[in-house]
Protein backbone atom coordinates (compact mmCIF):
# COMPACT_ATOMS: atom_id res chain seq x y z
CA UNK A 1 0.00 0.00 0.00
CA UNK A 2 1.23 3.50 -0.80
CA UNK A 3 0.52 5.64 2.26
CA UNK A 4 2.82 8.61 1.81
CA UNK A 5 4.33 10.74 -0.97
CA UNK A 6 7.16 13.23 -1.08
CA UNK A 7 8.74 15.01 -4.01
CA UNK A 8 11.44 17.54 -4.83
CA UNK A 9 11.04 18.21 -8.54
CA UNK A 10 12.26 20.88 -10.95
CA UNK A 11 8.70 22.19 -11.32
CA UNK A 12 7.67 21.93 -7.69
CA UNK A 13 9.32 21.40 -4.31
CA UNK A 14 6.93 19.64 -1.95
CA UNK A 15 3.74 17.76 -2.78
CA UNK A 16 1.30 20.76 -2.99
CA UNK A 17 3.56 22.74 -5.37
CA UNK A 18 4.32 19.68 -7.50
CA UNK A 19 0.67 18.63 -7.63
CA UNK A 20 -0.34 22.10 -8.80
CA UNK A 21 2.41 22.23 -11.45
CA UNK A 22 1.46 18.73 -12.60
CA UNK A 23 -2.19 19.62 -13.20
CA UNK A 24 -1.37 22.88 -14.93
CA UNK A 25 1.46 21.50 -17.05
CA UNK A 26 4.05 23.92 -15.66
CA UNK A 27 7.58 23.41 -16.92
CA UNK A 28 10.55 23.41 -14.55
CA UNK A 29 13.16 23.68 -17.30
CA UNK A 30 15.51 26.70 -17.05
CA UNK A 31 18.55 28.18 -18.74
CA UNK A 32 21.77 27.85 -16.70
CA UNK A 33 24.39 30.56 -17.43
CA UNK A 34 27.03 28.27 -15.89
CA UNK A 35 26.44 25.70 -18.65
CA UNK A 36 26.95 28.42 -21.23
CA UNK A 37 30.20 29.51 -19.60
CA UNK A 38 31.35 25.89 -19.65
CA UNK A 39 30.56 25.61 -23.38
CA UNK A 40 27.86 22.98 -23.05
CA UNK A 41 25.81 22.42 -26.21
CA UNK A 42 22.69 22.02 -24.09
CA UNK A 43 22.61 24.92 -21.60
CA UNK A 44 19.26 24.10 -20.04
CA UNK A 45 18.09 21.69 -17.40
CA UNK A 46 15.61 20.93 -14.67
CA UNK A 47 16.71 21.61 -11.09
CA UNK A 48 14.55 22.05 -7.96
CA UNK A 49 14.80 25.56 -6.49
CA UNK A 50 15.37 25.30 -2.75
CA UNK A 51 15.68 28.29 -0.42
CA UNK A 52 18.48 28.10 2.18
CA UNK A 53 15.97 28.62 4.98
CA UNK A 54 13.96 25.56 3.88
CA UNK A 55 16.97 23.27 4.34
CA UNK A 56 16.88 23.96 8.09
CA UNK A 57 13.51 22.22 8.32
CA UNK A 58 15.21 18.96 7.35
CA UNK A 59 18.81 19.20 8.54
CA UNK A 60 20.56 20.41 11.69
CA UNK A 61 23.03 23.31 11.50
CA UNK A 62 25.79 20.78 12.02
CA UNK A 63 24.59 18.56 9.15
CA UNK A 64 24.56 21.60 6.86
CA UNK A 65 28.15 22.54 7.78
CA UNK A 66 30.35 21.80 4.74
CA UNK A 67 27.34 20.10 3.15
CA UNK A 68 27.55 19.96 -0.64
CA UNK A 69 25.59 16.96 -1.92
CA UNK A 70 22.48 17.92 -3.87
CA UNK A 71 21.34 14.30 -4.16
CA UNK A 72 21.27 13.88 -0.38
CA UNK A 73 19.52 17.25 -0.02
CA UNK A 74 16.74 16.30 -2.46
CA UNK A 75 16.45 12.74 -1.17
CA UNK A 76 16.24 13.66 2.51
CA UNK A 77 13.66 16.38 1.79
CA UNK A 78 11.47 14.10 -0.36
CA UNK A 79 11.93 11.16 2.02
CA UNK A 80 11.04 13.06 5.19
CA UNK A 81 8.10 14.72 3.41
CA UNK A 82 6.75 11.30 2.39
CA UNK A 83 7.19 10.01 5.94
CA UNK A 84 5.26 12.97 7.37
CA UNK A 85 2.65 12.74 4.60
CA UNK A 86 2.04 9.16 5.70
CA UNK A 87 1.26 10.50 9.16
CA UNK A 88 4.42 9.01 10.64
CA UNK A 89 6.40 11.08 13.12
CA UNK A 90 10.14 11.59 13.13
CA UNK A 91 11.32 8.84 15.45
CA UNK A 92 13.34 10.40 18.25
CA UNK A 93 13.21 7.23 20.27
CA UNK A 94 14.45 3.71 19.80
CA UNK A 95 15.34 1.97 16.54
CA UNK A 96 12.36 0.73 14.50
CA UNK A 97 13.24 -2.74 13.20
CA UNK A 98 10.03 -3.01 11.17
CA UNK A 99 10.80 0.02 8.98
CA UNK A 100 13.53 0.49 6.39
CA UNK A 101 14.47 2.40 3.28
CA UNK A 102 15.46 1.54 -0.27
CA UNK A 103 16.54 4.84 -1.72
CA UNK A 104 18.26 4.66 -5.09
CA UNK A 105 20.93 6.86 -6.62
CA UNK A 106 22.85 7.28 -9.84
CA UNK A 107 25.92 9.21 -8.81
CA UNK A 108 25.87 10.91 -5.44
CA UNK A 109 27.65 13.91 -3.97
CA UNK A 110 29.35 14.87 -7.21
CA UNK A 111 29.89 18.49 -6.11
CA UNK A 112 31.34 17.33 -2.79
CA UNK A 113 33.56 14.90 -4.63
CA UNK A 114 34.80 17.67 -6.93
CA UNK A 115 35.52 19.88 -3.91
CA UNK A 116 37.49 17.00 -2.38
CA UNK A 117 39.43 16.33 -5.57
CA UNK A 118 40.69 19.92 -5.53
CA UNK A 119 41.95 19.46 -1.94
CA UNK A 120 43.48 16.07 -2.74
CA UNK A 121 45.30 17.29 -5.84
CA UNK A 122 46.66 20.22 -3.85
CA UNK A 123 48.14 17.77 -1.34
CA UNK A 124 45.64 18.80 1.35
CA UNK A 125 43.80 15.54 1.93
CA UNK A 126 43.59 16.21 5.67
CA UNK A 127 41.49 19.31 4.91
CA UNK A 128 38.57 17.19 3.63
CA UNK A 129 36.79 17.19 6.98
CA UNK A 130 34.78 14.40 8.51
CA UNK A 131 31.78 14.16 6.18
CA UNK A 132 33.28 13.56 2.72
CA UNK A 133 32.70 9.82 2.84
CA UNK A 134 29.07 9.99 3.91
CA UNK A 135 28.30 12.68 1.35
CA UNK A 136 29.89 10.84 -1.57
CA UNK A 137 29.18 7.16 -0.90
CA UNK A 138 26.39 5.77 -3.08
CA UNK A 139 24.36 4.81 -0.03
CA UNK A 140 24.76 8.28 1.50
CA UNK A 141 21.13 9.21 1.01
CA UNK A 142 19.74 6.06 2.62
CA UNK A 143 22.28 6.44 5.43
CA UNK A 144 21.10 9.98 6.19
CA UNK A 145 17.43 8.96 6.04
CA UNK A 146 18.03 5.85 8.13
CA UNK A 147 19.69 7.90 10.84
CA UNK A 148 17.14 10.68 10.96
CA UNK A 149 14.21 8.24 11.10
CA UNK A 150 15.86 5.56 13.26
CA UNK A 151 15.19 2.86 10.66
CA UNK A 152 16.22 -0.64 11.69
CA UNK A 153 15.13 -2.76 8.74
CA UNK A 154 16.88 -2.67 5.35
CA UNK A 155 18.75 0.60 4.74
CA UNK A 156 20.21 0.55 1.24
CA UNK A 157 20.57 2.37 -2.06
CA UNK A 158 20.00 0.55 -5.33
CA UNK A 159 21.38 1.74 -8.65
CA UNK A 160 20.22 0.88 -12.16
CA UNK A 161 20.64 4.12 -14.11
CA UNK A 162 17.35 5.66 -15.19
CA UNK A 163 15.24 2.76 -13.91
CA UNK A 164 16.65 3.21 -10.39
CA UNK A 165 13.58 4.91 -8.91
CA UNK A 166 11.09 2.40 -10.22
CA UNK A 167 13.38 -0.45 -9.19
CA UNK A 168 13.66 0.96 -5.63
CA UNK A 169 9.88 0.84 -5.26
CA UNK A 170 9.83 -2.72 -6.59
CA UNK A 171 12.59 -3.83 -4.20
CA UNK A 172 10.72 -2.29 -1.28
CA UNK A 173 7.44 -3.88 -2.40
CA UNK A 174 9.03 -7.32 -2.68
CA UNK A 175 10.61 -7.11 0.75
CA UNK A 176 7.33 -6.11 2.34
CA UNK A 177 5.49 -8.83 0.40
CA UNK A 178 7.97 -11.44 1.59
CA UNK A 179 7.14 -10.51 5.17
CA UNK A 180 10.61 -9.18 5.99
CA UNK A 181 9.49 -5.58 6.61
CA UNK A 182 6.27 -3.80 7.53
CA UNK A 183 7.11 -0.42 6.10
CA UNK A 184 9.72 0.90 3.67
CA UNK A 185 10.51 4.40 2.51
CA UNK A 186 11.12 3.80 -1.19
CA UNK A 187 12.45 6.37 -3.58
CA UNK A 188 15.40 7.71 -5.45
CA UNK A 189 17.43 10.83 -5.95
CA UNK A 190 19.73 12.36 -8.50
CA UNK A 191 22.40 15.01 -8.23
CA UNK A 192 22.23 17.66 -10.91
CA UNK A 193 24.38 20.29 -12.54
CA UNK A 194 27.28 20.33 -14.99
CA UNK A 195 29.32 17.47 -13.52
CA UNK A 196 26.39 15.06 -13.75
CA UNK A 197 25.00 16.27 -17.05
CA UNK A 198 28.30 16.68 -18.95
CA UNK A 199 28.57 13.06 -20.06
CA UNK A 200 25.14 13.23 -21.66
CA UNK A 201 26.05 16.50 -23.37
CA UNK A 202 29.15 14.81 -24.75
CA UNK A 203 26.99 11.94 -26.02
CA UNK A 204 25.07 14.58 -28.00
CA UNK A 205 21.71 13.25 -26.93
CA UNK A 206 20.51 16.54 -25.38
CA UNK A 207 18.65 19.30 -27.27
CA UNK A 208 20.97 22.17 -28.20
CA UNK A 209 18.59 24.46 -30.11
CA UNK A 210 16.46 25.55 -27.19
CA UNK A 211 18.88 27.49 -25.00
CA UNK A 212 16.81 30.63 -25.65
CA UNK A 213 13.55 28.78 -25.22
CA UNK A 214 14.04 26.26 -22.38
CA UNK A 215 10.46 25.41 -21.46
CA UNK A 216 9.75 24.17 -25.01
CA UNK A 217 12.80 21.90 -25.24
CA UNK A 218 11.54 18.66 -23.74
CA UNK A 219 9.06 17.23 -26.26
CA UNK A 220 8.18 13.59 -25.55
CA UNK A 221 6.23 11.87 -28.33
CA UNK A 222 6.46 14.96 -30.53
CA UNK A 223 7.66 15.00 -34.13
CA UNK A 224 10.13 17.62 -32.88
CA UNK A 225 11.54 15.43 -30.07
CA UNK A 226 15.26 16.11 -30.26
CA UNK A 227 16.81 14.71 -27.13
CA UNK A 228 16.13 14.67 -23.40
CA UNK A 229 16.60 17.68 -21.15
CA UNK A 230 18.72 16.71 -18.13
CA UNK A 231 17.11 17.09 -14.74
CA UNK A 232 17.50 16.14 -11.09
CA UNK A 233 15.53 15.91 -7.86
CA UNK A 234 13.98 13.15 -5.77
CA UNK A 235 10.75 11.30 -5.23
CA UNK A 236 9.67 9.11 -2.33
CA UNK A 237 6.80 6.78 -1.43
CA UNK A 238 6.00 5.15 1.88
CA UNK A 239 5.01 1.55 1.23
CA UNK A 240 3.53 -0.61 3.95
CA UNK A 241 1.43 -3.68 4.52
CA UNK A 242 -2.34 -3.30 4.43
CA UNK A 243 -2.45 -4.46 8.04
CA UNK A 244 0.00 -1.79 9.16
CA UNK A 245 -1.81 0.93 7.18
CA UNK A 246 -5.18 -0.07 8.61
CA UNK A 247 -3.85 -0.28 12.13
CA UNK A 248 -2.67 3.33 11.86
CA UNK A 249 -5.86 4.34 10.03
CA UNK A 250 -3.59 5.73 7.31
CA UNK A 251 -4.86 7.11 3.99
CA UNK A 252 -4.05 4.67 1.20
CA UNK A 253 -3.20 6.65 -1.92
CA UNK A 254 -2.79 3.60 -4.17
CA UNK A 255 -1.75 -0.02 -4.05
CA UNK A 256 0.85 -1.89 -6.03
CA UNK A 257 -0.61 -5.03 -7.60
CA UNK A 258 2.22 -6.22 -9.83
CA UNK A 259 5.84 -5.53 -10.68
CA UNK A 260 8.63 -6.74 -12.93
CA UNK A 261 12.28 -5.99 -13.59
CA UNK A 262 14.48 -7.46 -16.29
CA UNK A 263 17.30 -6.71 -18.70
CA UNK A 264 17.65 -7.02 -22.43
CA UNK A 265 21.17 -8.34 -21.98
CA UNK A 266 22.40 -5.78 -24.53
CA UNK A 267 21.37 -8.24 -27.23
CA UNK A 268 18.87 -8.14 -30.12
CA UNK A 269 19.12 -4.40 -30.69
CA UNK A 270 19.72 -3.67 -27.02
CA UNK A 271 23.01 -2.02 -26.06
CA UNK A 272 24.57 -0.06 -23.22
CA UNK A 273 22.42 2.91 -24.23
CA UNK A 274 19.45 1.43 -26.12
CA UNK A 275 16.78 -1.01 -24.98
CA UNK A 276 16.15 -4.45 -26.41
CA UNK A 277 12.46 -4.03 -27.37
CA UNK A 278 11.70 -7.71 -26.80
CA UNK A 279 12.88 -7.40 -23.20
CA UNK A 280 10.83 -4.22 -22.68
CA UNK A 281 7.70 -6.04 -23.85
CA UNK A 282 8.50 -9.04 -21.69
CA UNK A 283 8.96 -6.80 -18.65
CA UNK A 284 5.53 -5.22 -19.18
CA UNK A 285 3.93 -8.64 -19.74
CA UNK A 286 5.53 -10.03 -16.59
CA UNK A 287 4.15 -7.13 -14.57
CA UNK A 288 0.65 -7.82 -15.94
CA UNK A 289 1.05 -11.49 -15.12
CA UNK A 290 2.25 -10.64 -11.62
CA UNK A 291 -0.81 -8.38 -11.17
CA UNK A 292 -3.03 -11.12 -12.59
CA UNK A 293 -4.64 -8.74 -15.07
CA UNK A 294 -4.96 -8.50 -18.85
CA UNK A 295 -3.62 -5.61 -20.91
CA UNK A 296 -7.21 -4.43 -21.32
CA UNK A 297 -7.37 -3.56 -17.61
CA UNK A 298 -4.83 -0.73 -17.97
CA UNK A 299 -6.53 2.69 -17.97
CA UNK A 300 -3.40 4.74 -18.45
CA UNK A 301 0.35 4.49 -18.88
CA UNK A 302 2.99 6.72 -17.40
CA UNK A 303 5.79 6.08 -19.84
CA UNK A 304 9.53 6.44 -19.71
CA UNK A 305 9.31 8.55 -22.92
CA UNK A 306 12.38 10.75 -22.70
CA UNK A 307 11.82 12.83 -25.88
CA UNK A 308 14.21 11.00 -28.20
CA UNK A 309 13.62 8.92 -31.33
CA UNK A 310 13.20 5.95 -28.96
CA UNK A 311 9.75 7.22 -27.95
CA UNK A 312 8.27 5.60 -31.07
CA UNK A 313 9.84 2.27 -30.16
CA UNK A 314 8.50 2.52 -26.62
CA UNK A 315 4.93 3.14 -27.82
CA UNK A 316 5.28 0.13 -30.15
CA UNK A 317 6.42 -2.01 -27.23
CA UNK A 318 3.50 -0.95 -25.01
CA UNK A 319 1.13 -1.64 -27.90
CA UNK A 320 2.51 -5.13 -28.45
CA UNK A 321 2.72 -6.03 -24.76
CA UNK A 322 -0.81 -4.82 -23.96
CA UNK A 323 -2.19 -6.04 -27.30
CA UNK A 324 -3.92 -2.70 -27.78
CA UNK A 325 -3.65 -0.10 -30.53
CA UNK A 326 -5.43 2.80 -32.24
CA UNK A 327 -8.23 4.20 -30.11
CA UNK A 328 -8.20 1.05 -28.07
CA UNK A 329 -4.83 2.02 -26.58
CA UNK A 330 -4.86 3.41 -23.01
CA UNK A 331 -4.14 7.04 -22.22
CA UNK A 332 -0.42 7.72 -22.04
CA UNK A 333 1.63 10.60 -20.69
CA UNK A 334 5.20 11.55 -19.92
CA UNK A 335 6.27 13.82 -17.07
CA UNK A 336 9.54 14.55 -18.83
CA UNK A 337 7.90 17.31 -20.90
CA UNK A 338 7.67 19.33 -17.67
CA UNK A 339 10.71 18.31 -15.61
CA UNK A 340 13.10 16.81 -18.15
CA UNK A 341 14.79 13.51 -17.48
CA UNK A 342 15.63 13.39 -13.78
CA UNK A 343 17.89 10.35 -14.41
CA UNK A 344 18.05 8.09 -11.34
CA UNK A 345 15.27 10.19 -9.75
CA UNK A 346 12.96 9.96 -12.75
CA UNK A 347 11.23 6.71 -11.78
CA UNK A 348 10.34 7.82 -8.26
CA UNK A 349 9.24 11.35 -9.20
CA UNK A 350 7.11 9.89 -11.99
CA UNK A 351 5.71 7.26 -9.61
CA UNK A 352 4.63 10.06 -7.28
CA UNK A 353 2.88 11.71 -10.26
CA UNK A 354 1.26 8.38 -11.14
CA UNK A 355 -0.10 7.84 -7.63
CA UNK A 356 -1.38 11.45 -7.51
CA UNK A 357 -3.25 10.83 -10.76
CA UNK A 358 -4.90 7.71 -9.35
CA UNK A 359 -5.76 9.31 -6.05
CA UNK A 360 -7.14 12.54 -7.53
CA UNK A 361 -8.55 10.87 -10.70
CA UNK A 362 -6.95 13.03 -13.36
CA UNK A 363 -4.38 12.76 -16.11
CA UNK A 364 -1.69 15.44 -16.28
CA UNK A 365 -1.17 17.05 -19.70
CA UNK A 366 1.59 16.12 -22.13
CA UNK A 367 3.21 19.47 -22.77
CA UNK A 368 5.25 20.39 -25.86
CA UNK A 369 3.48 17.72 -27.88
CA UNK A 370 1.44 19.87 -30.24
CA UNK A 371 2.45 17.74 -33.19
CA UNK A 372 2.61 14.05 -32.35
CA UNK A 373 5.26 11.99 -34.13
CA UNK A 374 3.64 10.47 -37.26
CA UNK A 375 5.14 7.04 -36.52
CA UNK A 376 3.40 7.10 -33.13
CA UNK A 377 0.09 7.99 -34.81
CA UNK A 378 0.47 4.89 -36.95
CA UNK A 379 0.24 2.84 -33.75
CA UNK A 380 -2.11 4.75 -31.46
CA UNK A 381 -4.78 7.43 -31.78
CA UNK A 382 -3.98 11.04 -30.90
CA UNK A 383 -6.85 10.94 -28.34
CA UNK A 384 -4.68 8.65 -26.23
CA UNK A 385 -2.19 11.48 -25.65
CA UNK A 386 -3.97 14.15 -23.57
CA UNK A 387 -2.60 17.65 -24.11
CA UNK A 388 -4.73 19.21 -21.40
CA UNK A 389 -5.45 18.01 -17.88
CA UNK A 390 -8.14 15.39 -18.19
CA UNK A 391 -10.46 14.28 -15.41
CA UNK A 392 -11.32 10.66 -16.07
CA UNK A 393 -12.03 7.63 -13.91
CA UNK A 394 -8.77 5.76 -13.43
CA UNK A 395 -8.45 2.38 -11.78
CA UNK A 396 -5.09 1.05 -12.96
CA UNK A 397 -2.00 2.87 -14.25
CA UNK A 398 1.14 1.14 -15.51
CA UNK A 399 4.48 2.88 -14.92
CA UNK A 400 7.71 1.81 -16.57
CA UNK A 401 11.30 3.05 -16.57
CA UNK A 402 14.26 1.98 -18.67
CA UNK A 403 17.95 2.64 -18.15
CA UNK A 404 21.47 2.47 -19.51
CA UNK A 405 22.71 -1.07 -19.30
CA UNK A 406 19.50 -2.21 -21.04
CA UNK A 407 17.55 -2.51 -17.77
CA UNK A 408 13.79 -2.28 -17.42
CA UNK A 409 11.31 -1.92 -14.56
CA UNK A 410 7.51 -1.84 -14.57
CA UNK A 411 4.95 -1.29 -11.79
CA UNK A 412 1.17 -1.68 -11.94
CA UNK A 413 -0.51 0.79 -9.57
CA UNK A 414 -4.18 0.44 -8.66
CA UNK A 415 -6.57 2.83 -7.00
CA UNK A 416 -7.49 1.57 -3.53
CA UNK A 417 -11.23 1.03 -3.34
Amino acid at each position, binding site marked *: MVTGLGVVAPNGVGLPAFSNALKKGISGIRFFPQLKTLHFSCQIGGMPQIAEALKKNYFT*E*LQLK*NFNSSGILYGVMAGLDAWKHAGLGINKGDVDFDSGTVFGVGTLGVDKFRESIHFIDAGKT*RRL*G*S*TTVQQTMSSGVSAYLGGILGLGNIVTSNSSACSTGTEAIIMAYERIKSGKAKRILAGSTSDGGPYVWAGFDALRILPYKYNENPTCASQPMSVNACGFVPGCGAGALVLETLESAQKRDATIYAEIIGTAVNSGGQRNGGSMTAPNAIAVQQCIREALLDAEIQGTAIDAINGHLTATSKDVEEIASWSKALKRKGRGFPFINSLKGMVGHCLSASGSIEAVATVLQLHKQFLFPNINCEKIHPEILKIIDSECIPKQQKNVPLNIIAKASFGFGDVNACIIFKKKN
Partner: protein
Amino acid sequence: MTEKEIYDKLETIINTYLPEDVSKNAIQADSDLTKELNINSSHLVDIVLDVEDTFNIALTNEDMEKLHTVKDAIFIIQSKLI
Protein backbone atom coordinates in the same frame (compact mmCIF):
# COMPACT_ATOMS: atom_id res chain seq x y z
CA MET B 1 46.64 35.68 23.20
CA THR B 2 45.47 35.08 26.77
CA GLU B 3 44.20 31.70 27.93
CA LYS B 4 40.75 33.26 28.32
CA GLU B 5 40.78 34.46 24.69
CA ILE B 6 41.82 31.00 23.50
CA TYR B 7 39.15 29.37 25.67
CA ASP B 8 36.39 31.64 24.32
CA LYS B 9 37.30 30.96 20.71
CA LEU B 10 37.60 27.24 21.40
CA GLU B 11 34.24 27.19 23.15
CA THR B 12 32.60 28.66 20.01
CA ILE B 13 34.22 25.99 17.85
CA ILE B 14 33.25 23.11 20.13
CA ASN B 15 29.69 24.39 20.48
CA THR B 16 29.13 23.80 16.75
CA TYR B 17 29.72 20.07 17.16
CA LEU B 18 27.76 19.45 20.38
CA PRO B 19 24.90 16.95 20.07
CA GLU B 20 21.46 18.57 20.26
CA ASP B 21 20.92 17.37 23.84
CA VAL B 22 24.17 18.84 25.21
CA SER B 23 24.15 22.54 26.07
CA LYS B 24 27.02 24.98 25.69
CA ASN B 25 27.12 25.32 29.49
CA ALA B 26 28.37 21.75 29.69
CA ILE B 27 31.71 22.79 28.20
CA GLN B 28 34.30 22.93 31.01
CA ALA B 29 38.09 23.11 30.90
CA ASP B 30 38.46 19.45 31.81
CA SER B 31 35.50 18.16 29.76
CA ASP B 32 36.40 15.16 27.62
CA LEU B 33 35.18 16.03 24.12
CA THR B 34 33.94 12.62 23.08
CA LYS B 35 33.32 10.84 26.38
CA GLU B 36 31.67 13.66 28.34
CA LEU B 37 30.41 16.13 25.74
CA ASN B 38 29.36 13.21 23.51
CA ILE B 39 30.85 14.77 20.40
CA ASN B 40 30.97 12.23 17.56
CA SER B 41 34.60 11.16 17.36
CA SER B 42 34.63 11.80 13.60
CA HIS B 43 33.96 15.48 14.34
CA LEU B 44 37.31 15.75 16.15
CA VAL B 45 38.91 16.17 12.75
CA ASP B 46 36.55 19.06 12.01
CA ILE B 47 37.37 20.67 15.35
CA VAL B 48 41.06 20.40 14.52
CA LEU B 49 40.50 22.04 11.10
CA ASP B 50 38.50 24.86 12.71
CA VAL B 51 41.24 25.33 15.34
CA GLU B 52 43.86 25.52 12.60
CA ASP B 53 41.86 28.15 10.70
CA THR B 54 40.95 30.19 13.77
CA PHE B 55 44.43 30.30 15.31
CA ASN B 56 46.39 30.05 12.06
CA ILE B 57 48.39 27.06 13.28
CA ALA B 58 48.91 23.48 12.05
CA LEU B 59 48.29 20.39 14.19
CA THR B 60 50.12 17.15 13.60
CA ASN B 61 48.74 13.62 13.90
CA GLU B 62 50.61 13.38 17.22
CA ASP B 63 48.86 16.52 18.49
CA MET B 64 45.51 14.94 17.62
CA GLU B 65 46.36 11.82 19.58
CA LYS B 66 46.94 13.97 22.69
CA LEU B 67 43.70 15.87 22.23
CA HIS B 68 41.02 14.62 24.63
CA THR B 69 39.83 17.52 26.75
CA VAL B 70 39.28 21.25 26.29
CA LYS B 71 42.39 21.76 28.45
CA ASP B 72 44.45 19.56 26.10
CA ALA B 73 43.34 21.72 23.19
CA ILE B 74 44.30 24.93 24.96
CA PHE B 75 47.73 23.48 25.80
CA ILE B 76 48.33 22.43 22.20
CA ILE B 77 47.20 25.80 20.85
CA GLN B 78 49.37 27.69 23.34
CA SER B 79 52.43 25.65 22.41
CA LYS B 80 51.89 26.45 18.73
CA LEU B 81 51.30 30.15 19.28
CA ILE B 82 54.65 30.71 21.01
